[in-house]
């Protein structure tokens, strides 16, 4: 920053936020993150994407719609 901005920058000094403030704001974010993760999770919520198909084929072939599939 140029020297002629130093005095102006000093005017803008504020105390850092209290830790609780940052935590509370992060809670808002975590709610949004959790909502999105839940919305995109597989219906049974136990398998990671990519691994689901391998474990699934014997019991519930992918070509067959499952009862809890909203698109079925």
């Amino acid at each position, binding site marked *: 920053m140029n020297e002629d901005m130093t005095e102006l*920058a000093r005017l803008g000094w504020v105390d850092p936020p209290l830790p609780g403030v940052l935590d509370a704001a992060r809670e808002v974010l975590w709610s*949004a993150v959790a909502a999105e993760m839940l919305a995109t999770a597989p219906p049974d919520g136990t398998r990671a994407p990519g691994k689901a198909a391998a474990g699934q084929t014997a019991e519930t072939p992918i070509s067959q719609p499952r009862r809890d599939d909203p698109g079925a």
Partner: protein
Amino acid sequence: MRRRVETDGALIERSARGRPDAFVEVVQRHEVAVYGFLARRAGRQAADDLLGEVWARAFAGRAGFDPVHPDARPWLYGIARNVLRAHWRAARAADQLPGRLAEDPWDDVIDRLDSAAAARARELVGAVRALPAEEREVLLLVAWEQLTPAQAAAALGIPQGTARSRLHRARAALRPVLAQTAGEDS
């Protein structure tokens, strides 16, 4: 071997492609800076209330962020600016704030300074307050948030050349006051 640090752009891109939790690291990197942006313009209490709204909006809009940018601050300040505008609009609508004060945080700036500094700074504050709003915004993004003129342009959604010329005009207008302040110091 040292772990390679992901850029903000890479984290945001990853968060938009199936790993939404990657966005949390971006927030942790910039939460103090964004809080400062809000607090400098609207006071600490409003900043306390509005910071979560900035994160919610940023997360919801992250697909629109161009991951080529390594630093997300200009984008986040642009969002924080919109959150502040909405806050001031709502406060004005509820008659909690007189119109001019709602858009002008400068009285709060003076209140935050100790009395000796306030007396010295009053002239500078007056000069900054007298700047056209669009010049003032560029100036403060550079002076307070330490953005480059190009980053300030991104935060405000204006061409870089426009930001540079506004900054140039603002600095030229403040030069006499700043020179006088420097003279008092010596």
